[in-house]
């Protein structure tokens, strides 16, 4: 049991390249930290420096509050699971799992035997305890490596991609067993993983690392709700957050496929910028034809042609294509080059319920609450505004958060109230806009490149007698 701290760790290679850049992390006693980042982030190097297997160019490793840079790996009393398992090929699973514990010569052998059997049972390794690593598959080898580590009574545990080889069926189970075991023992643990969804389920704190630089440290909730910059926003989340460039025209935020009227707070955060990046999480999108979208506060409506749809059981990922403004594209590319990470795409992903109609080639209308919009600076890539930072709407009309679609939501509610009893038809914003002949609400933007209305489409929402034909609506 020990506090683990990395203080201003920098590592430069002989060729001058910087692997780690002023990394500072603190893991209080008995807590978990997940270091999450893509390949070449420096996760493994960081763990190796912690374990004493590599030296930092600058900075200190503190174990239990004591600078331990010069302490040998064996004396740090940290256990490590390596990404390539590192099992002894000449020992069977049982001996491999008992190896680390036996090496310390601290725990009694009876206790080690019992622990190995218990852990093997938890990790579904009992049937292969007599087999050598060559006879095991990668998932079993990895579980044996995890088992070897947790059987040993160490002060802290370092896990380098400990579940990467697990098949989906067992992955969650092994993860849960490992975390629970650590929690029961109240040991300090650090997990390195390239999987954001794993990081947020594993740890009390998550550190997002890329190219040797820590972008953000915080609780999984903080990382998810308030990503510090574009990299964190684009990397943490599955599917990844949509990062869409938007231009500012007066008090209007113009996205390639929608317009949002900014409130005072948003306008203040945006300042005198002419371009920002808007972040929208796919899971915050709703099918406008579904009743759940009607409950959204300050809805923004997005309409587009379905380029692709991935069915995922309860939900489906729907891809809507759009064009990125060529004037902004160079700046986006520069940000991607800085992060060496692909952040911006020419498609928008919405995670809709699987019963939403999203045939490839068809047009879908999606609603997202304006309150769920993230804003990022295009120059610094830093966060300007996160959903949690939106103040409550004030009663005065001139300070109220108002989007281009606010009136639509109200109208939907109003019209729904006027519906005949028993009429369960879901009214869409399009219906209302058509009913009131509101040109802005049904505006067709340039990004709706290939969309052609199909009046005879069988799955189109039903129309009321009093509604004019869609073709009669004026274009903006």
């Amino acid at each position, binding site marked *: 049991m020990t506090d683990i701290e990395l203080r201003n760790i920098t590592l430069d290679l002989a060729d001058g390249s910087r692997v780690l850049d002023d990394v500072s992390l603190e893991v209080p006693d008995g807590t978990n930290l997940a270091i999450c980042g893509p390949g070449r982030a420096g996760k493994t190097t960081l763990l190796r420096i912690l374990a004493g297997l590599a030296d930092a160019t600058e900075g200190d490793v503190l174990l239990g509050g004591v600078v331990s840079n010069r302490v040998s790996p*064996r004396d740090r009393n940290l*256990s*490590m699971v390596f990404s*390539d398992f590192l099992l*002894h090929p*000449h020992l069977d699973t049982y001996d491999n799992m008992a190896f680390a514990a036996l090496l310390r010569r601290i725990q009694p052998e009876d206790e080690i035997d019992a622990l190995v059997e218990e852990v093997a049972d938890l990790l579904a390794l009992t049937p292969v305890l007599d087999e050598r690593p060559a006879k095991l598959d990668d998932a079993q080898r990895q579980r044996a490596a995890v088992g070897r580590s947790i059987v040993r009574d160490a002060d802290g545990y370092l896990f380098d991609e400990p579940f990467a080889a697990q098949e989906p069926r067992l992955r969650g189970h092994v993860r849960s067993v490992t975390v629970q075991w650590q929690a029961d023992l109240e040991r300090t643990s650090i997990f390195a993983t390239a999987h954001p969804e794993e990081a947020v389920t594993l740890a009390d704190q998550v550190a997002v690392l890329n190219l040797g630089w820590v972008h953000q440290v915080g609780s999984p909730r903080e990382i998810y709700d308030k990503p510090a910059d574009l990299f964190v926003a684009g990397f943490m989340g599955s599917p990844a957050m949509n990062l869409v460039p938007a231009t500012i025209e007066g008090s209007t935020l113009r996205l390639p496929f929608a317009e949002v009227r900014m409130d005072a707070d948003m306008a203040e955060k945006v300042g005198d910028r002419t371009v920002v990046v808007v972040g929208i999480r796919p899971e915050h999108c709703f099918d406008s034809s579904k009743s759940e979208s009607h409950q959204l506060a300050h809805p923004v409506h997005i309409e587009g042609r379905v380029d692709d749809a991935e069915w995922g059981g309860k939900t489906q990922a729907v891809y809507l294509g759009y064009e990125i403004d060529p004037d902004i594209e160079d700046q986006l590319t520069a940000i991607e080059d800085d992060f060496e990470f692909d952040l911006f795409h020419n498609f928008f992903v919405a995670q809709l319920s699987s019963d939403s109609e999203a045939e490839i080639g068809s047009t879908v209308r999606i609603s997202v609450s304006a309150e769920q919009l993230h804003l990022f600076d295009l120059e610094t890539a830093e966060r300007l505004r996160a959903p949690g930072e939106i103040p409550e709407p004030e009663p005065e009309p001139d300070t109220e958060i108002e989007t281009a679609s606010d009136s639509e939501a109200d109208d939907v509610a109003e019209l729904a109230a006027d519906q005949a009893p028993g009429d369960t038809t879901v009214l869409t914003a399009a219906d209302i806009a058509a009913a009131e002949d509101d040109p802005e609400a049904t505006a067709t933007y340039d990004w709706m490149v290939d969309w052609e209305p199909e009046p005879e489409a069988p799955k189109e929402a039903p129309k009321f007698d009093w509604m004019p034909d869609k073709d009669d609506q004026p274009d903006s």
Partner: protein
Amino acid sequence: MSPTVRSRLLASGAAFVVGFILANYGILRVAGPDRWLWSAIAVVLMATGAIGVIISDSPRRVSVWAIVGFELMVAFTLVPLLWTFSVATAPDLATPTAVLPQQVDWSVFGDAWGDSTYWNALLASLLVGVLATVISLLVGLPAAHAFVQNRVPRGRQLYLLVVALLLAPAVVFQGAIADQLRSLGVISWRLAPVLPVLVLTIPLTIWLGVAALHNLPWTLRDAIRVEGGGWRDELRSFVLPIIGPNVLLVGLLVFIVAVNDVTAGAVMTSTESSRLLPATMLLVTGDLTYPSGRVAAMGLLLLIPALVVLFAAPRRILHLVGRTYR
């Protein structure tokens, strides 16, 4: 007709034609019991041809060319070996009249065993072999380790140089070394042949060492260190069980090559004390006063250590040499 079927039919045809020629040659030109030997080889080849035609359309992964090649290799290996055995076991040191042994007289092995010429040469070969192997392992394995760990600047070019040394005619270097040893007056020393032998064994050790040390889980040492192990644990849990067998095998192969190094033996023939076994056998083969049966027996005795190594660790040898060729 698919390429596989065509290839099988071609191999079957080739096997049948070669078998047919051998059968005719054996029947028409070979006399005595050897006619059966020729016929047997011919029958095997012709039968392979026939079976190859039958299975040509089979979905099984069988290469008829490989089978024919293997049969020819066995024939080319076994026939000379049989002849050596016949020469060694012919009664009264007479020259045998057939490849197939007619009468077996084991006494010549005892004579060879007690022959001082043989013993001198064997002792010289063993001493030189052991010393050359030890030096080669001490020099070559660290070099191989450096190559494997990519710690050698311009490693690829240097490794190419090592392979080139193996391919170059050894006599170019060994002759020069022998001349230097002669000018220094140490050519007659019993261990003098070590130097020319090293010309062959050091590159060979590096070459085999790279194959042996490649793909070993070197980072396992990190795991041992993190888990609390010291250098003794590293030795016990990594060096001995994981590196040890491969190093032992490299040593055995290098030793056998060192003992069999004919060129080094040939350039160091000035005195009997430094004359190695292969050179001795070459010399006495041309010496009509020396019984040829005894020479053959010496050769067969020399074969034993190689066979022992081969049968002791066949899978590991194939693995090691296979990786070297990859």
